[in-house]
C-alpha cells in the first residue's frame, strides 16, 4: 500500500495536464501547453520547464518568463538582526526611513537579484528597521516578501483549490458561491460513488466538477442545462481522466416538458441549439438532392455531358459540392451523436430514481426545484443554492404546501479565518460577508391526495401591539 518509486510517475507534471499555479493566496488554473504564454499576476510566464517536475514543486520566475525549479528550502528567513525596539514611540512616518529609491530597487532587480536579496538590501537601507519591535520586523519582512518574491508553485487541481480560486478571482462566474458553502452542498446532498445525481448549475461547471470528483468516476451524473449547451469550463480545470466523462450525461432543460409528457422524440431534430444547424443542413440537402454517401448522384452523371468549356468551372463546382457534402455528412453525424446522447440522458431520467439533486444557478430556484424533484427516489437528499435568501423562502413555502419532502432546512454558513502566531493569535481583520444560502431536505413518498400535512411552522402570531399614546 505504501507508495514506492513505481507510481512516482503519477505525481509528475505532464504536457496537456490541467494544473493550478499558486503564489500566496493567489491561484490560477491553466493547461500545460508547449510555448504557451500565461499571464500570472501581471507577469508573462512559460510553463515548458515544469513538464517532468513533480506536483507541489516551486519555481523561480526568470527574466523572459522562463521558470526554474527552486532549490529546496531557499526560503529561510534572513539572518535575524536580533536588534529590536520595545515599542513604536520613536517610529515616525516621514517617508524618509527607506534610503533606497524606487529606481534603486528597479536597478537591483535588473542586476538579477533574487527576492530574498532585495529584501536584505531593503532592511539594510532602512533607518528604522532595528527600532521596530520583533513582531513589527516579522510583519515588515512578510510584506516585502509578498512584494518581491518571484516564485510560483504548481499544484494538482482539487475541488478545494478550484473553489477557492473561483471565489477569489471570479466570484461572479460562480454566483458568489463560497467554498465552504460548496462543501456543505456536497455533504448535504450525500454525494458519493455509485449513485445517480442530477445537477443544475450555472457556476461555470465548478459544482458539476466537484460532484464528479466526489463520485470518482463511479455512478451517473446527469447535468440538466439551460440554453444552448452545458457550461463545462470549470469541469475541464479538474483534469479528470477520460473515463470520468463516460459517467456524465447532459439533458437540455428545454426538453423537460416533452420528456415529462412522454413525447420526447429523441430522433427528431433538436429544436433549440440545433436550430441553425438543422436549417443549414436542410438547405444543403436542397442543393444536393441526392446527398448519399456513395456520391454517384444523377447530378454527377449530368456533369459528364456538359461542354469542355465549362469543365474547369464544373470541376471547381464539383469539389465545392463535395466539400459541402462532407460537411453536411459531418453535421449529420454530429446531429445523430447529439440525439444519441439526448436519448441516453432521457433514459437515465425516465426511471425517476435519482439519488440526489443539486441546484446552484442564477435562475429562480423554485420552478427548477419543483420540476426536478420529481426525478428523485423517495428518501433521497437534495440541496439548492441561491445567492439570495428570498427565493429559497419561496421554495420552502411551496414544498411545505406540496409535501413530498421532509427535514427542510434553510441555512448559511459563517466563516472566519485566524492568524495563528506565538502571542499574536486573533481573527483575521477581514472576513467574507456572506457565502450564499442553502435549502436542503429529503424526499419522501408522495402524499395520498386527501391528507393535509400538519405544518411544522407555527401559525402566524399576531405581533402584540404595545399600547401607544394614541
Amino acid at each position, binding site marked *: 500500500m505504501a507508495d514506492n518509486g513505481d507510481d512516482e510517475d503519477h505525481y509528475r507534471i505532464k504536457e496537456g495536464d490541467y494544473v493550478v499555479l499558486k503564489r500566496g493566496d493567489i491561484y490560477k488554473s491553466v493547461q500545460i501547453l508547449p510555448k504557451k504564454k500565461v499571464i500570472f499576476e501581471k507577469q508573462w510566464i512559460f510553463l515548458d520547464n515544469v513538464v517532468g517536475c513533480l506536483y507541489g514543486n516551486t519555481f523561480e520566475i526568470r527574466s523572459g518568463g522562463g521558470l526554474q525549479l527552486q532549490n529546496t528550502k531557499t526560503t529561510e528567513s534572513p539572518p535575524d538582526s536580533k536588534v529590536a525596539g520595545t515599542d513604536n514611540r520613536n517610529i515616525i512616518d516621514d517617508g524618509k526611513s527607506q534610503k533606497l529609491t524606487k529606481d534603486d530597487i528597479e536597478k537591483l532587480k535588473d542586476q538579477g537579484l533574487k527576492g530574498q536579496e532585495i529584501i536584505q538590501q531593503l532592511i539594510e537601507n532602512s533607518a528604522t528597521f532595528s527600532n521596530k519591535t520583533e513582531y513589527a520586523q516579522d510583519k515588515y519582512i512578510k510584506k516585502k516578501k509578498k512584494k518581491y518574491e518571484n516564485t510560483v508553485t504548481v499544484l494538482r487541481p482539487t475541488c478545494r483549490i478550484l473553489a477557492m480560486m473561483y471565489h477569489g478571482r471570479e466570484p461572479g462566474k460562480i454566483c458568489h458561491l463560497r467554498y465552504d458553502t460548496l462543501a456543505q452542498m456536497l455533504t448535504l446532498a450525500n454525494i458519493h460513488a455509485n449513485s445517480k445525481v442530477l445537477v443544475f448549475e450555472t457556476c461555470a461547471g465548478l459544482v458539476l466538477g466537484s460532484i464528479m470528483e466526489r463520485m470518482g468516476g463511479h455512478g451517473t451524473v446527469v447535468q440538466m442545462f439551460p440554453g444552448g449547451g452545458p457550461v463545462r469550463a470549470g469541469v475541464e480545470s479538474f483534469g479528470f481522466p477520460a473515463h470520468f466523462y463516460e459517467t456524465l450525461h447532459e439533458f437540455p432543460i428545454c426538453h423537460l416538458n416533452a420528456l415529462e409528457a412522454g413525447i420526447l422524440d429523441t430522433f427528431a431534430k433538436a429544436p433549440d441549439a440545433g436550430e441553425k444547424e438543422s436549417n443549414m443542413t436542410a438547405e444543403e440537402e436542397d442543393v444536393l438532392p441526392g446527398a448519399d454517401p456513395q456520391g454517384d448522384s444523377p447530378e454527377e452523371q449530368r456533369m459528364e455531358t456538359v461542354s469542355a468549356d465549362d469543365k474547369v468551372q464544373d470541376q471547381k463546382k464539383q469539389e465545392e459540392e463535395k466539400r459541402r457534402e462532407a460537411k453536411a455528412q459531418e453535421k449529420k453525424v454530429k446531429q445523430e451523436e447529439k440525439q444519441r446522447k439526448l436519448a441516453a440522458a432521457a433514459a437515465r431520467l425516465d426511471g425517476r430514481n435519482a439519488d440526489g439533486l443539486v441546484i446552484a444557478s442564477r435562475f429562480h430556484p423554485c420552478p427548477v426545484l419543483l420540476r426536478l424533484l420529481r426525478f428523485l*427516489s423517495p*428518501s433521497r437528499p437534495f440541496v439548492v443554492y441561491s445567492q439570495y435568501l428570498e427565493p429559497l*423562502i419561496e421554495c420552502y413555502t411551496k414544498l411545505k404546501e406540496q409535501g413530498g419532502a421532509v427535514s427542510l432546512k434553510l441555512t448559511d454558513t459563517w466563516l472566519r479565518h485566524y492568524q495563528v502566531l506565538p502571542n499574536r493569535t486573533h481573527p483575521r481583520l477581514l472576513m467574507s460577508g456572506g457565502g450564499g444560502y442553502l435549502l436542503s431536505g429529503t424526499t419522501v413518498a408522495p402524499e395520498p391526495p386527501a391528507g393535509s400535512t400538519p405544518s411544522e411552522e407555527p401559525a402566524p402570531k399576531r405581533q402584540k401591539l404595545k399600547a401607544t399614546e394614541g
Partner: protein
Amino acid sequence: MSKNGVKSFELAKRSVWCEAESILVCAVVPDRLMSGCFLKVHPRLFISGFCLFRAVALAMSFVEYSEVIQDSDVAIIYLGHNSVMPVKVQHGAQTQTRYGVIRHSSDLIGQRYGSKVTCSKGGWVYVLHPTPELWTVSLPHRTQILYTTDIATITMMLDLKPGSVVCESGTGSGSLSHAILRTIAPTGHLHTVEFHQQRAEKAAEEFREHRVSHLVTVRNQDVCKDGFGVMGVADAIFLDIPSPWEAVGHAKAALKKHGGRLCSFSPCIEQVQKTAEALTDHGFEEINTLEVLLRVHDVRTVSLPLPDFGPDCSAHPEPDAMEAPPPAPSQTSINIKTTTPPRELPGHTGYLTFATKPRT
C-alpha cells in the same frame, strides 16, 4: 401514469425495462444500473452484450443506497422536525415511538425507504434510508461529536474523494468516521485509532452493522504514543484529541511520501497555538486555521400591524374637485414571509487547523 396506482412490482419491472432500453440505445455499459423499485441489476450481466436479467436485492449500506427495507438494515425514523431515531430492523421486533408502536415485520420490512408508516396510536412517521448526515443527528453519543457543518468543511479541505486513504483519531462516537467512509468508498480506506477500548469496540460493531467494515480498520491504541499503526500510506489525517501537537510527528509518518493534508479540530485557542507551532516545526506548509458556524433561518409568516395616523388631511382642500373616495377601510396589518434566527444557536464548536505536508 399515477405513481400511487402502480403496484411496486410493476414499477420495478418497468424501470428495469427502461434501463435495459437505455443500454440498447446507447450501447455502453454503465457502471451502475438503477431500478425504480427494489430490484437492482448487476452491471456485469451486460458485458457480453447479451442481457440476462438477474435481480439482486442490494442491502442497505452507509455507502450505497437501496430501495426497500430488509431485515437487519439500519433505518432512520423521521418523527418530525429535528427529531430522528435509528432503528435496527429485525423480524418480529417492535419500536416504541411517541406516536405509538412500529412493528418491524409488518410496518418496515418490504416497505420502500421514504414511505410513511402509521404507528399504533394513529400518528405517522417516515422511515428514511440512513446517510452519514442522518446518523450524525441520531447516533448514540459516547463522546462529544462533530456535526455536519464542520464535517463538510473537513471533507473538502482534506481533499477527500473515492480512493483516499485517511487516518483519524479519535474515533469517538464515529460521527465523522461515517462521513469519511461515505466519501472514500468504494476504493479508499479509513484507519481510525481510539484509545478507549469500549468505544473502539462499539465503533467497530457499528461499522459492521452499517456494512462499511470492509473500508475501515479500527485500532485501540494511543495515537500520541503509538501512532496510527500505518506508515506512508495516508492522503489525509484528522486529529480530534486533547493534545494534537503530540501526534503531529506520527501524523507526518503516516502520510504518503509525496505529501498530503492534515486537519486538527480543537475547541480551545491554546491547543491551536501549540498545534500550529508543532506543524511548523515538522515542516508542514499552508497552515490555516478557520472556524465555520451554521446559521439557521426559520421561515415564518409574521403579521406586522400598521399604525393609524388619523384622517388624511393632505387631501385636496376642495372636496368636490376630487372623486372624494371614502377613506378605504385601511388594512390594519400586513402578513409577510420572512426568516428569523433561532433564539440560541451553537456559537462555537472548534477551530479547524489545516496544513499540507509537502513531499519529503
